[in-house]
């Protein structure tokens, strides 16, 4: 009622568990698509949902939007993600969204290894952020992440 103290821990554990499962399913779907296989129904749904979220976040050009779309509690986590994506985050996120959507629809080029790798690195980065978020909560130091400094440089 009267406090503006922000907690980094989401109240909504049910949503966070669902989003975690969606990320794993999307990663599985992407792996299938990259070998020319058709993703399963649940994987297609996860790819579409994650693609929608990335596209929406990119189009809003807002870190707040990215944190909201991807279930990251703090805008700070989303800012790490944007830094990792590279200088033109909106363009990069839109491109990655296209890969996810293409994998869901079966229209992606399975030979485009560079694009697949970029998106796979993004998903790994997202899983690291989600883990850091779930583990902790009121710390002030940034989470230690293992993905490359800029995903745009991944080939």
């Amino acid at each position, binding site marked *: 009622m009267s406090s503006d103290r922000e907690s980094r821990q989401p109240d909504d554990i049910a949503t966070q568990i669902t989003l975690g499962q969606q990320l794993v399913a999307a990663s599985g779907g992407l792996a299938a698509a990259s070998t020319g296989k058709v993703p399963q129904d649940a994987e297609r749904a996860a790819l579409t949902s994650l693609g929608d979220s990335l596209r929406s976040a990119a189009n809003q050009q807002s870190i707040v939007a990215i944190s909201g779309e991807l279930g990251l509690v703090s805008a700070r986590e989303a800012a790490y993600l944007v830094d990792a994506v590279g200088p033109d985050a909106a363009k990069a996120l839109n491109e990655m969204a296209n890969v996810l959507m293409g994998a869901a629809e079966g229209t992606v080029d399975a030979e485009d290894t560079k694009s697949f790798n970029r998106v796979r690195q993004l998903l790994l980065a997202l899983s690291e952020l989600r883990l850091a978020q*779930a583990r902790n909560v009121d710390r002030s130091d940034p989470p230690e992440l293992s993905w490359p400094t800029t995903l745009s440089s991944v080939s």
Partner: protein
Amino acid sequence: MADDTEFRFVTASVRRAARLQREYVDSFLETAGSPRAIGEQFAELCDKIEPVVSDYERRHAATTDALDRRLILNAIRELLAWTRDLQLRCAWLDAAAKPPIDLGSLYYLRSLAKAIVRPDSEFTVVAAHEGSYATVVNPFRVPSTPVPPGIVLVALVPHREIRSGLLHPLLAHEIGHGVAKVHGYTEQLRTKVTTGRIEKMLARGAQETAKESKRAVTEERAVLDKRLGAWIEEIFCDAVATACLGATYLFSFATEVLPDDVDAAGLKHPPTRQRVRLILAHLDRLGWGSIIDREVPGFAAWVRGVASAPPASQRPADEALRKAIDLAARRIQGAVDKHVSANIAKPDEEALASVAELLKQHVPPAQHDDGSPIARPMIIAGCWLSAMKTRSGDVEALADAVDSDEVGQLLPYALELSVIVDRWQTA
């Protein structure tokens, strides 16, 4: 062949954590009467964990790719963290079984929640050891629209205040969050008001803020839109509590919030000066203003002075939000008055006089002379007025009145007796 030992160990730990949480909620459900949905939904969430673990196991076994396996390991560890964190909610089950506040206040608030949120609402009050008053709606379910049957509302009360019966009315504000979320008022109102002058103010606020912050205007605008939604919801909840409780809410609100900086704009909360002004305007329209002015003139003059003084200069974003809220306030309060129309507490001078007289006789103020029950909002308002008037009646009396021994003893009984009398006479 990749080593699966680490993954299997984490997986077993998730299963163990989920089993422990399930056992705790099972023991709650064995004896739970009402509220019960909080336990059932907790159990539902525990039961969702095993299929997720099985899915991760299957996917982990199916891939040999190092990146994929790393991602799944991250995900199962994340799941372990959430599953263990469910223990934070076990205290909520304890509170549902053994409420931390008096039953008179609790029964009143539960009936209010059923009346204005939805009849299938269950209201639980939890004593919180950190933070302020707060609300969580359906904490164990993924949000969905429309909200499915069985609404669980959890309101947090600062532990120090569990015996402060005259502050429990602040929980009506928390129930307001339930109304806003379940009926989608926040987004509806934000969309409706973000036009014309308010749209221009927000656009200008975002531009000026972006100049200072060096961030993109779109970024600052997204922040402003999010904050506007939060501020609208706070004004909405103030209006719910004001409409349902009348002057009581002003007294409780002033005790809790007014000692702090009245011009501080929060991320999610408008400045207190603005909130008090809007609460007073609402009370004046409902007919409470003249009663406050007459009964506790010292307090009324001070609070009206705070409300009418010019606000301190704010940062551009806060200034834009404050002005937007001023323009939108009548619309927000109008939406509330319409929603809670059957529960609006208009002042009943006869009831207030009865409460004052019964308190003088050390009798729980639950019934009129003719035996009819006194409405519970009037009982609480009468208790507040008596506690203030037996002291100086000035604003500083709030800090003492709120702990009035006599009111503290008689108010909970009166609230319980009022219900008993009402049901007896209705039967």
